[in-house]
């Protein structure tokens, strides 16, 4: 939720709550005033009636509303009692609210009780007639307050959005954080300073890490190159026996593995640290065809048959090197672990790529295939192939799954539905 949405929502909730509370409290307030007034006039009227009665000019004109009664016993209490009572009205056929005053007085040693009623209904209804005005006033107030507040909010939070945008477009390789804010609000200045320090440090760390990766990879390669070159010279020797040559051959292979391991680890680090940033729109099928052809060539003696279906054109905005590595790791795995004389199926549609091969069921496990150094028990594998696949897919938000069904292993790659707007 956006900041101003959040603010509006909160503001509306609070306003409505305040409105309801003030409505209720003012209703009771008004009611209290109305009843006070009625009680006052009842009290005035009582004096008049008692006076009339004592002077003998009292008549019955007051009807139902006044009830005068002579008491045989003197009541314990003589004071006035005001209360609200419900009376059933036969004409209206409903209960009507009345205010009733009960009082006692003497006339010539006789005790009388006087009950006077006053119809509350019309007076209470009067309260409701003022509520529309009340409502209009309230809405006017809420709107004014909202306009002023949102203007204030926008102005106040402008530096915050500047910082936010600057961070959004921040490029770790360039270290270009500079929102250029001018504000005298302490918190925003502090946020800006902290962001600036953090981005600075991230940029420096990135550079150090990049150098470290390049250097360590370099430090590995130099001794590998020395071993390799010496072997190249050693095999020129005329007096080597077959046995010695076998040893050399094994050393060659081990060096190759070491070199691949170094390359792949560096590669993983580089993907993780976003060294591959130049993305272009690349058509997938030509790259796929090239990789399939190369692998067919390399595994010529495995007698693998290929069912290839290319039924759609896929364009991805991706780094071309990464695309090649991604596809090659998937296709090469199929050829590498595909059984001799078996079939590999490669299906490319406009939304997905599926590569299925028949493998050794005892060596296949579908869980954690994407983790580093998880191998199918094959000594020559570095165990990084599929984890590189996963890393590249994560980077480009491609969905990749691998499934094992009996002795069939398949990798399923889903492409996002996004069409290129421009070709570079």
């Amino acid at each position: 939720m956006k900041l101003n949405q959040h603010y509006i929502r909160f503001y509306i909730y609070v306003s409505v709550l305040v409105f309801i509370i003030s409505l209720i409290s003012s209703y009771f307030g008004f009611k209290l005033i109305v009843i006070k007034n009625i009680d006052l006039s009842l009290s005035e009227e009582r004096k008049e009636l008692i006076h009339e009665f004592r002077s003998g000019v009292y008549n019955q004109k007051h009807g139902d509303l006044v009830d005068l009664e002579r008491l045989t016993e003197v009541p314990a209490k003589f004071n006035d009692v005001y209360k609200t009572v419900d009376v059933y009205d036969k004409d209206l056929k409903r209960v009507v609210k009345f205010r009733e005053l009960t009082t006692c007085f003497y006339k010539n040693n006789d005790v009388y009780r006087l009950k006077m009623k006053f119809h509350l209904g019309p007076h209470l209804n009067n309260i409701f007639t003022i509520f529309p005005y009340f409502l209009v006033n309230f809405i006017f107030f809420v709107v004014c307050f909202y306009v002023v507040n949102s203007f204030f909010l926008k102005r106040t939070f402008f530096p915050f959005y500047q910082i936010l945008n600057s961070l959004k477009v921040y490029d770790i390789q360039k270290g270009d954080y500079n929102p250029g804010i001018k504000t005298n609000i302490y918190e925003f200045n502090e946020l800006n300073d902290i962001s600036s320090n953090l981005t600075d440090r991230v940029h420096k760390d990135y550079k150090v890490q990049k150098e470290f990766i390049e250097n360590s990879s370099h430090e590995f390669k130099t001794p590998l190159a020395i071993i390799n070159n010496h072997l190249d010279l050693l095999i020129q020797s005329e007096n080597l026996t077959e046995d010695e040559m076998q040893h050399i051959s094994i050393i060659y292979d081990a060096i190759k593995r070491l070199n691949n391991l170094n390359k792949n680890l560096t590669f993983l680090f580089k993907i993780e640290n976003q060294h591959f940033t130049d993305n272009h729109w690349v058509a997938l099928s030509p790259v796929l065809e090239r990789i399939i052809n190369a692998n067919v060539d390399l595994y010529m003696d495995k007698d693998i048959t290929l069912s290839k279906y290319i039924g759609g054109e896929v364009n991805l905005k991706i780094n071309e090197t990464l695309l090649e590595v991604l596809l090659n790791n998937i296709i090469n795995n199929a050829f590498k672990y595909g059984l001799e004389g078996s079939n590999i199926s490669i299906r490319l549609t406009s939304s997905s790529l599926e590569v299925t091969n028949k493998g050794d069921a005892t060596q296949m496990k579908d869980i954690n295939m994407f983790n580093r150094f998880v191998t199918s028990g094959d000594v020559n594998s570095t165990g990084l192939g599929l984890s590189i696949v996963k890393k590249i897919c994560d980077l480009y938000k491609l969905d990749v799954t691998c499934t094992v069904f009996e002795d069939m292993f398949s990798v399923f790659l889903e492409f996002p539905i996004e069409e290129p707007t421009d070709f570079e």
Partner: protein
Amino acid sequence: MKVLVVEDEAEIRRTVVQYLSGSGYLVESVVNLREAEDKLAVFEYDCVLLDLMLPDGSGLDILKKIKANYPQTGVIILSAKDSINDKISGLDLGADDYLPKPFHLEELMARLKSIIRRRSFAGSNIVEFKELKIDVEARQVFVNNVDAQISGKEYDILLFFVTNKNKVISKNSIAEHVWGDYTERLDSIDFLYTHIKNLRKKLTAMGCGDYIKSIYSVGYKFADI
């Protein structure tokens, strides 16, 4: 043919010098930029093999000078630095080739010969070995002047053999030369055997001598005897 090796790592320098000298090149070597500049000022070289990370600076600096002052000299960058940027800037500055470490000496030889062929004059597109004739420009192989119809990977293998004639070539270096990065993930390079068998069959069928010899499990040798 004169070659200058600029490399601070003694063992790499030594092996490169030994391999190239063994193939009839006149090879000199230096360990830093200053010595390289001194040599270049006095002698003329057909090709410079240049390491990028040198004790007194980057090889890219001297690359600019070589290209400005000795345009006829070819340059191959030998680098252990794993950076695409270095490769791009090296080639942009005029390097003829970029060979990442670790490399095979046979591969270095192939790259070197290719540059020297490209840089020298008329007739240099033809590589000859006895009755074999390879037209590098047209990618054609002739046996006794008859087109042997050798193409694709077999052509690449044959040219690599002839380039490194009389040397034992490891299977790994052939595979890497011809299939490049695709061989990285291979468990075995036995597939090479099939390709070489086919190549041999085609050549001998045309009446060419069988010059490809298998050297136990390690590799092959292309030689007269």
